[in-house]
């Protein structure tokens, strides 16, 4: 179905990544789209996506105000970089379309493995545009870099293949926010590759608020060098069928990763969170907290894998998934998966599923707060555990508004 799009895509695309695209396409041909018979996709049926015929997107007009000067905003419209409405790049860092990336940036496609995953191979089959972000050694960037993807189908459903490469140098520090939204039915198939050098620090936030009929599949893949620190907050609000994959691999010792997620689903939304933390080196720590809030007939999935390799002694890994069910018809499947091959490690995992507390509700009502706002307040209280850890105040406020209304 997607293969018919390859030739028309190449007519417009830079030849620069042709070899990568060809390799990915060859791989994609051998990887069937996953079904519920595959263990990693047991609870997520992608049939509605697989049965839809997607087109390449039209270019959208770069309209709207220029990005404010004090911000670092980089806009993509239907998958294409929109420099006219994006911020100028300060000289201390390097950001731009992958099409124009410096030749010294050979990392594209090296972190997210096209061999492992049909959707990652599909994304790489369309590599051309996308954003690269390079924070050179010792540069500390205070202003968050915002990567904003807007997608819209005008007639037939379109597929966009956002691709981002984030390279954090030695001792460098940055914050990156990815944001996805749009209109009508479309399919976002995003791949984000992240690499951190020794002592590098990245605070990553993803705000996914796709349209309610959109498909969103994302693979965020991270490789961490010694003593680096990576944090992500994956905030999922939109989309009809959503699959969020986060894969972190420790490639050096004494590195620390925090992988947090919040997913809010209502109606018939389906949100699948799939994480892999690969403790391939000793002395690393990972903290993982996912919280789900499910209303209506929504379906949530949490599948958290932690690998502790044979030599990865002194690993400290913690994984927690907590779910709040707001309706009797909502469903959650949660599956922790720990595979530990080292003997001197600390690994814990836990899952809880609960409902709003009647005593707390009555307490709020007795203080004058009507039942519905009281329910929303308690829902926000549940989410706050994650929201409060996001360092960007504007995103915290946005989440509060979304939940409390």
């Amino acid at each position, binding site marked *: 179905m997607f293969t018919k799009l390859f030739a028309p895509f190449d007519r417009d695309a830079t030849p620069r990544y042709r070899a990568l695209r060809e390799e990915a396409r060859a791989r994609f041909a051998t990887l069937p789209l996953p079904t519920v018979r595959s263990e990693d996709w047991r609870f997520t049926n992608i049939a509605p996506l697989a049965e839809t015929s997607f087109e390449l997107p039209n270019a959208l007009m770069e309209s709207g105000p220029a990005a404010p000067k004090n911000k670092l905003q980089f806009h993509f419209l239907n998958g294409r970089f929109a420099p006219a409405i994006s911020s100028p790049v300060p000289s201390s860092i390097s950001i731009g379309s992958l099409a124009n990336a410096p030749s010294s940036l050979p990392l594209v496609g090296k972190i997210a493995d096209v061999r492992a995953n049909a959707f990652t191979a599909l994304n790489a089959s369309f590599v051309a545009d996308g954003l690269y972000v390079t924070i050179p050694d010792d540069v500390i960037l205070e202003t968050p870099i915002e990567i904003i993807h807007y997608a819209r189908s005008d007639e037939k459903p379109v597929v966009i293949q956002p691709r981002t490469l984030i390279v954090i140098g030695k001792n460098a520090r940055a914050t990156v926010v990815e944001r996805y939204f749009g209109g009508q039915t479309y399919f976002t198939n995003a791949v984000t590759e992240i690499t951190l050098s020794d002592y590098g620090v990245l605070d990553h936030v993803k705000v996914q608020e796709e349209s309610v009929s959109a498909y969103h599949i994302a693979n965020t893949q991270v490789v961490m060098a010694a003593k680096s620190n990576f944090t992500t907050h994956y905030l999922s609000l939109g989309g009809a069928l959503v699959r969020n994959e986060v894969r972190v691999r420790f490639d050096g010792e004494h590195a620390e990763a925090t992988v947090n997620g919040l997913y809010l689903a209502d109606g018939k939304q389906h949100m699948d969170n799939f994480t892999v933390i690969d403790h391939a080196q000793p002395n690393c720590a990972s903290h993982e907290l996912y919280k789900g809030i499910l209303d209506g007939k929504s379906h949530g999935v949490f599948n958290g894998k932690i690998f502790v390799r044979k030599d990865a002694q002194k690993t400290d890994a913690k994984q927690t998934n907590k779910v709040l069910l707001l309706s009797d018809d909502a469903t959650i499947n949660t599956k922790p998966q720990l595979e530990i091959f080292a003997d001197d490690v600390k690994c814990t995992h836990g899952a809880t599923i609960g409902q709003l507390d009647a*005593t*707390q509700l*009555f*307490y*709020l*009502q*007795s*203080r*004058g*707060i*009507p*039942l519905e*706002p*009281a329910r929303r*307040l*308690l829902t*926000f*209280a*549940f*989410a*706050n*555990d994650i929201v*409060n850890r996001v360092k960007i105040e504007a995103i915290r406020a946005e989440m509060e508004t979304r939940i409390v209304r």
Partner: protein
Amino acid sequence: MLTIRNLHAKVADKDILRGINLTVKSGEVHAIMGPNGSGKSTLAGVLTGKDAFEVTEGEVLFEGKNLLDMKPEERAGEGIFLAFQYPVEIPGVTNNYFLRASVNSVRKYRGEPELDAAAFLKLVKAKAKVLHMPEDLLKRAVNEGFSGGEKKRNEIFQMAVLEPKLCILDETDSGLDIDAMKAVAEGVNALRSKDRAMIVITHYQRLLDHIVPDFVHVLSEGRIVKTGGKGLALELEAHGYDPIKAGMATV
């Protein structure tokens, strides 16, 4: 202000209240005492609309309106406040946030404009000062990790901010040492006024040394069996509830 007539209520098919009659006028402080299981907390729950209790007979009028038809939040809007025996912890919501939602819900109910953040902060700071409430408690999650004394003070603080017409204090002294109890009583006394009535529910007389009531009612087996002035509390302290119960049996 409050008129309770022949109130009967049950919990899970067990009759708890069996014909309560009580009239409370503004400015008055009524103490309700009684042994465990006499129905004290049930009465507080029925007045505030806790749905575990089913009213089977009787009526309750608050300023002429039928209270039993109202939802808990409407009762709060009308000016009824319950200081909980066991204040509820709400992790993830700061005291400040919760109180602002509460104040603005009540204002909305009364058709008053909501307070913005600045106006609210001013109100809260003024009240915190009067009650010697440490301001850092406002930034902490509602009752989470609070000591017993802090929880009860927080109830009184909410009461001060909401300025209710009728305050119901359910065993506010339970679990407090004498200093904490004094501090709470001081807060309550600061809120006494001619426009405000209070119902103080307590098992022990000692709280009433500090919050001196105008009337003392003894509740036993779901009925008020004796009413007197503040001296009645001392009598109960000296002789216990048994003579009253025994007196009932012989009547």
